[in-house]
């Protein structure tokens, strides 16, 4: 009967209906056919079936009388052990061999199918990385996603992405499991990569240099871990390229968005700054105003203002050292300070001293502000403070030009600095000209500056000596001098004209 069973099992196996229990059924039939007390069937070192099932390795080792039958053939790894067999029919063994060979082929087919699907899965995982991480711009989140893919793909117990400008300062921005790289290993991996049985670490190389290191460690096997295979290295290399591209894309996109944000902020800052300047010149009977201000960057370190009350017209021009947003912020502070302090501080020198004291405590050591302020009454009576600024010019009606020169340090340098006031008079037909060094320092192609002297010459030679004409002609002359080159510094010009009362 057992022989008949074996033949049935062999037929079943040959027909392709191989169940996982077939090896046990075959062993049972062989044990019964040979009238053995027990049997063990191994494939390689693995016990695939024992009959009775209670036969453990310990029982097997402790029992004498085992007969091992070479049960292979056709490259098969089967080993059959029978305990005290009474007979061995070759036909029964042949049938059993056929059935077991079918079991082996079934296992092989399963493995091959699994391996094929696993390769497909690897490819799909690598391919899907671009989709899954596209649009992730935060490096931490990006690193976490990448690590998830890497752990899945290689089947490792730990993985990490180190990023930084060099191995000494690089940090693990994403990790799974314990970090396994020692500092010296990280340095080696950064330079040339690192490959051992337990650890794979590859540099993330972009065209601008190494961005970091990708690490995978302790590849899992069915029981414990196993060394990385050549295919793992290839997959990791492919993955490292994907990771590098993803990180570069995230960085470049973030930088681009940041530039765009800064550009928008600068536009807003420039807009705000432009509104600090008078949009409409205040009316002060007997006087007329004109002004120009052009920043060399979006936000200027120059500022100007014109304040009018029932007694005075006050014109202010200030130039903050440096350029850009930092200078612009200080310029805005000066603008606000003058407006606020002029309501309570009657004297120009006192006002300059208070702004100076504020600036000394509020700005960096290397920041300072040149500042000129002129106050006129309705009769042309004039008071001026010049704190390290370009000379303020008075063009007389007959074309002569006079200077109100500096009488103190620029603001923001020395807390105890004092400022004196100059006095004078603006007669009908005279022009008062305040400007910043963006005008005088404009260079021609020979790097020769426009200079204060040329400003005086242009002002003196005005065919139409009025405020608007003075602004227009000065800027035209500067532009001509510079040969059309853009100004290297912020340039500001304010002209106050005392209207002539007669011919």
């Amino acid at each position, binding site marked *: 009967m057992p022989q008949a069973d074996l033949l049935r099992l062999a037929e079943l196996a040959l027909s392709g209906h191989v*169940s*996982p*229990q077939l090896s046990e059924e075959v062993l049972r039939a062989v044990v019964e056919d040979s009238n053995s007390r027990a049997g063990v069937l191994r494939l390689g070192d693995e016990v695939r079936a024992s009959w009775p099932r209670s036969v453990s390795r310990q029982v097997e080792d402790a029992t004498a009388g085992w007969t091992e039958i070479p049960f292979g053939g056709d490259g098969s790894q089967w080993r059959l052990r029978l305990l005290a067999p009474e007979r061995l029919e070759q036909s029964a063994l042949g049938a059993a061999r056929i059935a077991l060979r079918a079991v082996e082929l079934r296992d092989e087919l399963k493995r091959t*199918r*699994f391996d094929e*699907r*696993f390769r*497909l*899965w690897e490819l*799909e995982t690598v391919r*899907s990385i671009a989709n*899954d991480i596209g649009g992730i711009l935060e490096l931490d989140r990006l690193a976490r996603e990448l690590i*998830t893919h890497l*752990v*899945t793909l*290689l*089947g*490792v*117990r730990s993985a990490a992405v180190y990023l930084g400008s060099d191995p000494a300062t690089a940090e693990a921005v994403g990790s*799974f*499991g314990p970090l396994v790289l020692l500092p010296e290993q990280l340095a080696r991996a950064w330079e040339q990569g690192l490959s051992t049985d337990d650890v794979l670490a590859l540099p993330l190389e972009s065209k601008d240099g190494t961005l970091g290191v990708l690490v995978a460690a302790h590849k*899992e*096997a*069915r*029981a*414990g871990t196993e060394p990385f295979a050549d295919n793992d290295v290839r997959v990791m290399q492919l993955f490292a390229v994907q990771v590098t591209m993803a990180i570069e894309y995230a960085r470049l996109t973030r930088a681009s968005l940041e530039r765009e944000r800064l550009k928008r902020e600068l536009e807003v800052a420039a807009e705000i700054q432009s509104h600090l300047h008078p949009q409409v010149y205040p009316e002060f009977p007997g006087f007329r105003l004109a002004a120009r201000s052009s920043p060399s960057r979006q936000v200027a370190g120059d500022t100007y203002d014109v304040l009018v009350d029932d007694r005075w017209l006050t014109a202010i021009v200030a130039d903050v050292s440096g350029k850009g947003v930092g200078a612009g912020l200080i310029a805005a502070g000066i603008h606000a300070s003058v407006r606020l302090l002029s309501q309570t501080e009657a004297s120009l020198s006192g006002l300059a001293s208070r702004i100076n004291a504020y600036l000394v405590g509020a700005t960096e050591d290397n920041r300072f502000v040149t500042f000129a302020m002129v106050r006129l009454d309705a009769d042309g009576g004039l008071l001026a403070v010049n704190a390290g600024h370009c000379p303020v010019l008075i063009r007389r009606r007959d074309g002569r030009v006079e200077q109100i020169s500096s009488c103190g340090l620029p603001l923001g340098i020395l807390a105890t600095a004092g400022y004196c006031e100059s006095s004078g008079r603006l007669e009908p037909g005279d022009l008062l000209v305040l400007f910043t060094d963006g005008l005088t320092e404009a260079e021609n192609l020979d790097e020769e500056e426009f200079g204060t002297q040329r400003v005086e010459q242009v002002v003196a030679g005005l065919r139409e000596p009025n405020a608007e004409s003075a602004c227009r002609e000065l800027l035209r002359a500067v532009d001509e001098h510079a040969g059309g080159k853009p100004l290297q510094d912020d340039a500001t010009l304010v002209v106050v004209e005392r209207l002539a009362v007669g011919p």
Partner: protein
Amino acid sequence: MNEEQIHLTADVLSNGVGLIAAAGYINNEGGQAIADAAGDLMERGCGTLLIDLEGTRIINSIGVSILLEIMEKLLEEKGRLAFCSLTPTISKTFEIMGLVQYATIYPDQQSARAELEGHASG
């Protein structure tokens, strides 16, 4: 929660349905823990197993192979395997590795139980 470790709960539901909720890394250890829980539920008479993977983001090839073995074992016993709450990545993995051919995938535990417990009783 430590994602590197598997966290399991196993319950016998109504009508021969066993529920395993697994959160964490499904590797050889995580996979084996699920296989042990599945074997236990089958011994307790569960012919249908529902594996809820909410909280599981990562599964490696060994984890997949263990799940395939659970599926084979269930099919031999004329049982039924189902999964729910899969991440898109794991769903894709199951599709490629052939698990979806013999296991049913549900979006969440509620819909899975509604169908499986109703089905088993019906």
